[in-house]
């Protein structure tokens, strides 16, 4: 059996998206900035894509800027808000400890430039508390940035409540919605969002393309200078084929969203129940307030990379927050933020199911993970010490 269970890393392009993009790689290759027909056709496709995306997130087309993906959108959103804040002498930003590195590293850069950054802790359930966020707001807060759904543990953040708080105080609110768009209902009006980042390859579109929603009246600054593409906010000839495919993928995802979420949630819960039966294991993040396909566990006494390699041998593609898979010494900052000890965080496993997942596959995953964890524990000195009582079990 071959099971791709790493859909939070990337997704397979949908056939609809592939077919939508092909004409723009071949006969319709014109530059949207050219005035002859081939160019204008490309321009038309670009604007249709913009309209479709805007409609799905309840925005207006002029509020959508196409980017190279989620990281670029995050960078542009945060740096723009910082630039606006600086003009008013506001140099404080509120965010959370579990953001993606595209956000965290941009904030680090701003800290070096003299900005003050408050990273809110999350509770054991991996969710930030609006009242704690409210308490962190200051007179000089120029931006609140909180992700919609976490990429590792899938936890959903109270975006609507945070949006309301920010609206009340007149503070721009950015959300990195890379894991949410195409999977959850998106409404920038309902959620009171000023800025929102998305990436096509997380919802069966192509890699290298995404978008930034910026509310009318919010002045974006450029990361890339050059031509007047994207109303002067993002220079460079547009990735027409990629953008068209992104819109097609999102349209398709949106049409099936509710049915998919229902089905995936049931499969997710079945997987969680099965893996929870492994002794000394624990689910990471809230069991209910999480993305439909996301399962993330820690298994005591084993290390994540060896688990991934053995699962790969048995046809399962997954990921881990272990340091050995990140190339750094520390395990995932998200797992540490929800209070997992280093020793335990090294033994984490993330499984993110795709739309086509079946019950049979979920049962195969449960059985295979159970056997593999057992096997690795059988020669783990850490497990031996835990079992002999030499060191206490954490999970």
């Amino acid at each position: 059996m071959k099971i791709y269970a790493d859909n939070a890393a990337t997704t397979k392009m949908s056939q609809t998206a592939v077919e939508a993009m092909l004409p723009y790689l071949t006969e319709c290759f014109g530059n949207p900035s050219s005035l002859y027909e081939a160019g204008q056709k490309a321009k038309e496709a670009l604007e249709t894509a913009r309209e479709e995306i805007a409609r799905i997130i309840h925005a207006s087309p002029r509020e959508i800027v196409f980017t190279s993906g989620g990281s670029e959108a995050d960078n542009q959103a945060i740096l723009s808000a910082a630039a606006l804040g600086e003009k008013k002498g506001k140099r404080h930003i509120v965010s959370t400890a579990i953001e993606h590195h595209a956000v965290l590293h941009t904030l680090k850069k701003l800290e070096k430039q003299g900005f003050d950054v408050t990273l809110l802790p999350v509770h054991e359930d991996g969710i930030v508390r609006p009242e704690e966020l409210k308490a962190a707001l200051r007179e000089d807060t120029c931006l609140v940035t909180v992700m919609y759904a976490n990429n590792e543990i899938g936890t959903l953040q109270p975006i609507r409540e945070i949006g309301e708080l920010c609206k009340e105080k007149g503070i721009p609110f950015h959300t990195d919605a890379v894991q949410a768009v195409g999977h959850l209902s998106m409404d920038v009006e309902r959620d009171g969002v000023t800025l929102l980042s998305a990436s096509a390859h997380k919802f069966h579109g192509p890699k290298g393309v995404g978008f930034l929603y910026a509310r009318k009246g919010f002045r974006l600054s450029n990361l890339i200078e050059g031509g007047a593409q994207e109303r002067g906010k993002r220079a460079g000839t547009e990735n027409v084929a990629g953008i068209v495919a992104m819109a097609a993928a999102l349209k398709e995802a949106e049409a099936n969203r509710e049915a998919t979420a229902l089905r995936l949630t049931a499969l997710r819960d079945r997987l969680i129940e099965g893996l929870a039966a492994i002794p000394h294991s624990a689910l990471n993040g809230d069991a209910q307030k999480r993305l439909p396909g996301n399962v993330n566990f820690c298994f005591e006494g084993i290390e994540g990379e060896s688990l991934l390699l053995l699962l790969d041998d048995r046809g399962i593609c997954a990921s881990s927050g272990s340091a050995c898979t990140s190339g750094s010494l520390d395990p995932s900052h998200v797992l540490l933020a929800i209070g997992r000890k280093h020793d335990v965080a090294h033994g984490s496993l993330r499984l993110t199911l795709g739309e086509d997942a079946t019950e049979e596959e979920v049962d195969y995953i449960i059985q295979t993970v159970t056997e593999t964890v057992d096997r690795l524990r059988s020669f783990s000195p850490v497990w031996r010490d835990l079992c002999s009582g030499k060191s206490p079990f954490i999970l």
Partner: protein
Amino acid sequence: MALYSEKVMDHFRNPRNVGVIENADGVGEVGNAKCGDIMKMYLKIKDEVIEDVKFETFGCGSAIASSSMATEMIKGKPVAEAMKLTNKAVAEALDGLPDYKMHCSVLAEEAIKAALKDYYDKNGIAYDESAFPDCESCGHCQI
């Protein structure tokens, strides 16, 4: 290209000399769970020859493969020869390790030396302290 060589994958998938030796003549444990790797080596020594060796490892694929390869390289060898095992030799025998995984081979060397030191200590055999690197020497934990 795959992350690891075929040899690493072979030793990882089918580790040699896995397990525990009861009443071992020398036992060595190095690494720590916080950093993500622990290796434990057990030696059975008779007439200054390593008759048997077993290991247990908590760690990534290359840590498991390095322990497995290191045990194969010293099994049946005189103690003096086992003392000369280097991490480089372990890594080479595995057809190389990615740069950021070299510390796994260092751990394997250290685990064997820690077990030999334990054997010397238990039997009151004099030895040169400088022959035993301390765990800090690989620098991995200072990244």
